[in-house]
C-alpha cells in the first residue's frame, strides 16, 4: 500500500525517513500544533514550495536541464487564479477556470519554449528561459490593466475559505475550524497529491528514460528515444505543476503580485532549495523547502540583529544587514554545488551506507 503511494521510491535511510516523517506530521497537524497566524503562514508556504521545488527537480535533477522560467509558470498559476477571482467573482467556478486556464497556458508555453530551444542544444534552454521569464515579468508589471502592475491583485476567495467563516461553533483540540484552516488543508493536500504524482512520474518508465537522457543524451538518442520530445514533455509536466503551486499560493495569500511569484529572488530560492535538499531525489525538495523557508522566516531576524550589532564597523554592517540575505544564500549556493552536490538527502543516505 505505502509502496504504491510512494511509487516504490522509499527514503531508503532511517535518518531521512525520520526527518521526512517529522516534516509530514508537523505540516499535517500545523493548525493544531501552533497558535497565531505566523506559524500557519510558514507551514502553508512550505507546502507550496515543496510542490514548486519538487516540480523543478523533475527538470533539473531528473532531466538535467536548467530553467530560469520556473517562477514564470509559478506566476502564471498565481495570476491565473488571481485574475479569475478578481474579475469573475469569488466563487469556486472562478478558481476552477483560473486553475485550468493557468495550467493550459503554462503547459503550452513550456512546450513552445522546449521545442524552440531544446531542438538545438540543451544549453539554449537555460538562456532562452531566462530571456522569456524576464520579458514575462516586465510584461506582467506593464500590463497593469490585467495584472494590477507592480501593485499586484488583491481579491476575495470563495466564502468558506475566508477567515470569518466557521465550520462549526466549537473547536477541535482547542483550534477553531475557520476558513483559514480549511484553506490550509486544501493547500496541504493539493501539494501532497502533486508531490506524489511527481514521485510517480520520476519512477515510471518515462522517468527512467529521462534519467538515461540526463546521463548520456547522445546514447539515449541512439537507443531510439527522441530526446527533444522527452525533455519537452518533462518541461511541460514541470510547468503545469509549478502553475498548480502558484494557484495554491494565490488562494492562501489572497494576493498575487510580481514579488510573490515572478521575482528573480524566488527563482534563486527555488534553485537553492533543490541543490541544498539534493538534486534528483524528490525528497530533497521536501527538506530543502522546509529548511530554507524556516531559515528565511526565523534566521533573517537573527541576521538583522547581527547587522545592528555590527553597526559600528564600516562594511561589516552592510554585509550583515538583512538586506544582504541573498549574498549569503548565493555563497551557500555556490559552495553547495561544489562540495555538496548530492545535498542533504545524499548525505543522509550516505550516513547509513545505503544508496
Amino acid at each position, binding site marked *: 500500500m505505502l509502496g504504491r503511494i510512494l511509487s516504490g521510491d522509499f527514503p531508503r535511510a532511517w535518518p531521512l525517513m525520520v526527518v521526512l516523517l517529522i516534516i509530514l506530521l508537523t505540516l499535517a497537524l500545523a493548525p493544531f500544533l501552533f497558535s497565531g497566524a505566523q506559524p500557519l503562514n510558514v507551514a502553508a508556504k512550505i507546502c507550496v514550495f515543496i510542490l514548486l521545488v519538487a516540480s523543478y527537480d523533475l527538470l*533539473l535533477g531528473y532531466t538535467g536541464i536548467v530553467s530560469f522560467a520556473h517562477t514564470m509558470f509559478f506566476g502564471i498559476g498565481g495570476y491565473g487564479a488571481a485574475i479569475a477571482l478578481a474579475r469573475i467573482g469569488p466563487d469556486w467556478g472562478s478558481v476552477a477556470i483560473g486553475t485550468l486556464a493557468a495550467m493550459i497556458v503554462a503547459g503550452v508555453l513550456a512546450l513552445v519554449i522546449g521545442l524552440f530551444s531544446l531542438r*538545438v542544444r540543451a544549453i*539554449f534552454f537555460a538562456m532562452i528561459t531566462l530571456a522569456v521569464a524576464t*520579458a514575462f515579468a516586465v510584461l506582467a508589471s506593464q500590463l497593469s490593466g490585467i495584472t494590477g502592475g507592480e501593485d499586484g491583485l488583491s481579491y476575495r476567495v470563495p466564502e468558506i475559505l475566508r477567515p470569518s467563516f466557521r465550520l462549526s461553533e466549537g473547536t477541535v483540540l482547542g483550534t477553531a475550524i475557520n476558513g483559514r484552516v480549511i484553506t490550509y488543508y486544501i493547500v496541504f493536500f493539493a501539494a501532497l497529491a502533486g508531490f506524489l504524482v511527481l514521485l510517480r512520474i520520476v519512477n515510471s518508465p518515462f522517468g527512467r528514460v529521462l534519467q538515461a537522457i540526463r546521463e548520456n543524451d547522445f546514447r539515449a538518442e541512439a537507443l531510439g528515444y527522441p530526446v527533444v520530445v522527452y525533455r519537452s514533455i518533462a518541461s511541460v509536466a514541470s510547468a503545469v505543476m509549478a502553475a498548480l503551486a502558484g494557484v495554491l499560493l494565490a488562494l492562501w495569500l489572497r494576493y498575487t503580485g510580481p514579488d510573490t511569484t515572478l521575482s528573480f529572488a524566488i527563482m534563486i530560492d527555488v*534553485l537553492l532549495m533543490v541543490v541544498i535538499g539534493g538534486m534528483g531525489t524528490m525528497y530533497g525538495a521536501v527538506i530543502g523547502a522546509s529548511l530554507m523557508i524556516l531559515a528565511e522566516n526565523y534566521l533573517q531576524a537573527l541576521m538583522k540583529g547581527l547587522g545592528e550589532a555590527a553597526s559600528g564597523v564600516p562594511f561589516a554592517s552592510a554585509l550583515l544587514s538583512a538586506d*544582504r540575505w541573498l549574498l549569503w544564500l548565493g555563497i551557500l549556493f555556490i559552495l553547495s554545488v*561544489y562540495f555538496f552536490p548530492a545535498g542533504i538527502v545524499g548525505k543522509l543516505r550516505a550516513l547509513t551506507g545505503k544508496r
Partner: protein
Amino acid sequence: MTDRTAEKEEVRAGAAIDWTPILLTVAVALAAIPLVGSFSTWVTLTVAALAMGMMIFIMASGLTLVFGLMDVINFGHGVFISVGAYMGLLVLWPLAGWVDSSSVFLNVAVLLLCIAFAMAATGLFGLAFERVIVRPVYGQHLKQILVTMGGLIVVEQLLYAFFGGNPITIALPQSFRGGLAFGPDIVVERYRLIAVAVGVVVFLGMLLVLNRTRIGLLVRAGVENAEMVEALGYNIRRLFIGVFVAGSALAGLGGVMWGFYQQTLTVGMGLQVLVLIFIVVIIGGLGSIGGCLIGSLLVALIANYTAFIEPKIALVSNIGLMLAVLLWRPQGLYPVTKS
C-alpha cells in the same frame, strides 16, 4: 573531368560570405521608414539603435568567444557589466570637475580614464572569476550554469553592499551632451555618435586581432576545433584565460558606455543587459563574432523601431525576433561549424 568541375564549384560555394543576414538587417532598417512615418525620426531612431547595437556587441563578443573556444557559458558575464559601470563611477566621483569642465580635452580624458580603469578592474575580476567560479566546474554544463549564476548573485549583492541599493545618476561630460544638427530637422545626440565610434573601433580592432595576428588565428582555430589546436602544440587553457579576461574587460568597457548612455547606474543593469546578450548570441550563432555583430544590430534596430511604433509590442519584440530567427536557422544566423 567531372571531378574537377565539381571541385571548383565546391570551392566557390565555400568561400562566399553569407550576405543574407546582412541584407536582412539593412532591409529591416529600410522597411521601418514608412512605418515610422517621418524620415528625421527614423534617422534618430536608427542612430540610437546603432549606438545601442554597438554597445551590446562590445558586451556580447566576449561571451560568445568564451563559449566558442571552451564550450563555457558564463551566466556571470552580466555582472561584469555592472562592475565595469561602478568602477567607472569610482573614477568619476573624484574627477567631477573634469566632467563639468567645458574643456573638450578634460572631457575626453575623464571618459578615457573611466574606460581604462573599468577595463583593468573587470579584466582582473574576470581572471579571479575564471579561477574561482568557472574552472572547478569546467566541462560540466549543468553545474557551470548554476555556479556562474550563483557568482552573479554574490557579486551583485557585494555591489549593493558597497554602493547601496538606490540608482545612481551620472552626468555626461559637458561636451558630449546635446545633439548635432544635420540639416533642418535631423538632430543626432552626440553621445550616440561616440558610442557608435567606440563600437566600430572595438569591432575593427577585434577583426584585426582575429585575422592578422597569431593569437587571433589560434582563437579562430580553437573555436572550430580546440583539440586539434592542442595537438599542434598550443596550450588552449592559457589562450582561453586570455580570451576570458579580454571578454571581461570588454564587458567592463560596455558597462561604462552603457552607464553613460542610460545616465543611471543600477546594480541590476548587468542582468538586464545579459538577457539581451543571450538573445543576441542565440540569434547570431553561439561562438560567431560576425553573427554577434549582426545579432546586436538586429536586436537594437527592432527594439528601437517597435518602441516608437507600438511600445507594448516592444516588450516582447526581442523574443519574437529570436523565435523567428530560430525557426529560420535553428543554429543562429551564422552557425559555427565544429570540425
